[in-house]
Each structure stands twice: as C-alpha cells, then as structure tokens.
C-alpha cells in the first residue's frame, strides 16, 4: 500500500459516505406507501441526476473495493508485485462493469 493507493481509497470512501446516507434516506422515503418496481423505475428512468449519483457510487466502490481487496489478497494470500496489481485491476474492472450495467438498467430509457 503506497501513499497513492491510500489516498485513492480514502477519497473514494469520502465520496461514498454521503452517497450511502443519501441512498438510505431515499430508501426510507421511497417505501412510504409501498414499494413497487414501476415506482422506482419511474423515478430513475431517463434521469441524468440518478445516473450521476449511482454512477459516481459505482466508480467509488470499484476503486475502494479493489484497493481494499488488494490489501487482503496481499496480506492473507501472499500475492505480490505484478500478480497483485493484475488481481486488483481485474476486481476494479469487474465491479465497474457489473455496477455500470445495473446503473444503465435502471436509468436508461
């Protein structure tokens, strides 16, 4: 873990913290009076705002989770150097692709 990775992980955590609160807040608001897929999709479909919110969330989680798991892989499984970085990039790409597919699914018209 270098200073660069440390900063990327802490900044992505700082970005996630308010988004987590927003996410929980909206969930509590949205389930008042029942929860339906149509209601949620009605809010998110075609919304640039929700695309930006969840897109940022996904990007931050991908950075944060990849660096976090990189530490775990290094300390618990002994991965080092190129193997370790390749694994971290793969996790980053996987989280980003899966996350963006989900964001696309709920926000695309």
């Amino acid at each position, binding site marked *: 873990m270098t200073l660069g990775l440390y*900063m990327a992980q802490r900044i992505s955590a700082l970005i996630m913290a308010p988004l987590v609160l927003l996410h929980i807040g909206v969930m509590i608001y949205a389930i008042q009076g029942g929860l339906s897929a149509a209601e949620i999709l009605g809010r998110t479909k075609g919304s640039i705002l929700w695309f930006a919110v969840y897109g940022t969330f996904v990007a931050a989680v991908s950075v944060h989770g990849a660096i976090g798991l990189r530490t775990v892989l290094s*300390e618990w499984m002994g991965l080092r150097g190129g193997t370790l970085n390749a694994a971290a990039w793969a996790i980053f790409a996987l989280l980003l692709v899966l996350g963006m597919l989900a964001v696309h699914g709920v926000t695309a018209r």
Partner: protein
Amino acid sequence: MANETHMSVSVWRGDAVGSFQPFEVKVEDNQTVLDVVAWIQQYADPTLSYRYACRVGMCGSCAMMVNGTPRWTCRTHVKKVLVDGHMQIAPLRNLPVIKDLATDMDPFFDKWVAAEGVHHPTLTRNDPIEALDPAAEARVESAAGIECINCSVCYAACDTVANNPDFLGPAALQRAWSVYNDSKNADKQAVLDAVSGVGGCHNCHSQGSCAVHCPNALNPMNAIAGLKRETARNFFKRRS
C-alpha cells in the same frame, strides 16, 4: 512437574525448525524471565543460546516471546507470567531465528534506515548549538518517541509485519516521526518520501498491538497516524 518450589519451562531449541524442550527451574522470590533463561544456560544446558546485555531495560536486546506474548524478559517477573506453574519461552516473532532464543535483528534495523530515521543536520559543527524549546508542539511530538530502546517487541507484536514482510513496522516509523518533527532535521521531505512507498506507513491498520505491548509505554500507532496525516497533506501540496 510444576509444584510450589519448581516451575516447568518450555524453551525453543533450533532455528526455523525445532521444538520446545522442557526444563525444571526452582521458583525464587524475585525472579525475572531472563533469570530463568540464564539459570538454564548456566546450570542445565550450556548450549542454550540467548541474548541480553543490560538487565535493566535499557539496551533492548533481551526480548522474547513469553507464553506467546512479546516481552522484555529482564523486566518481566516470573510471577506475572506463570500459568499453573508453567511458562513457554520462544524467540521473538517476525524475525529469522539464528539459534534457540536468539533472533537475527538485521531486518528490524535495516528498516530503521529504510524509513529514513537518520539525522539530516541543519548546522555544521562550527555553528553554535541551537537551543530547543521543550514545550514547542513539534518538540513534544518528537520527544514522545525518543525513549525507544529498539527492543523489537512492537515489531514482534504487529500482525501487519507478520503478513507483509515489506512493512517497515512500528518502531522504524515512530523514529521517522521523531526525526520529522525534530527542528534540527533539515530534510522533512526525505522522511515523507521514505514512509510513502510499498512498505510505508499507509500499510498500518491502526489496531494498536504495538502500543499495547511496548514495554516503555510508547505509542508507535500514534506516530504512524501523524505520518499518514502529514503525507496526505503533502500529497495535495506537492500537486498544486
């Protein structure tokens, strides 16, 4: 057989491979773990290897694992650590074992140098001696770590060292923090750069085993938090 008058002591014999050898040692009124090791070497088995020098908690050479906990053996009373008349003594964790209870401390000291825990003078020998203000904020930070006796107890206690051989470890990073805050240190950036790499201060998980086990009640975790703060602050400064 452990009883009122004798304790049973298991002592590590060998290097990386080896086994524990049992010894019977008489219980005395005032007795340190180091006394027990010395007694075994003098009266039971002269081939036992171990290391000590000052016997008063100054030199930092006598640290061993006692019942799995890193301790300075010269100032650890047997009564404090005996469990049902038994104790186990092993070489310090996280360091290569040379023989029996003696570890190779080179990796520990090499990391002090790698962490740039060295003096970068601001003056020459021809200049007058600079006065220090003991109450100055940076001096207080610097002084917090200077009673370190290089015993490697914190290094043995640190799980991050155990899982990441590159990690510079608590003692070396604490020294870097002392040097960083020293007003007589001319190269702050060299210290920050040295602790920002692959094995640097950012690997520490702040669990605090170092602070719990340091026999001098120092707090390397705190020093490392200071290094993290200063490197983070500097990260933006250098970019803008």
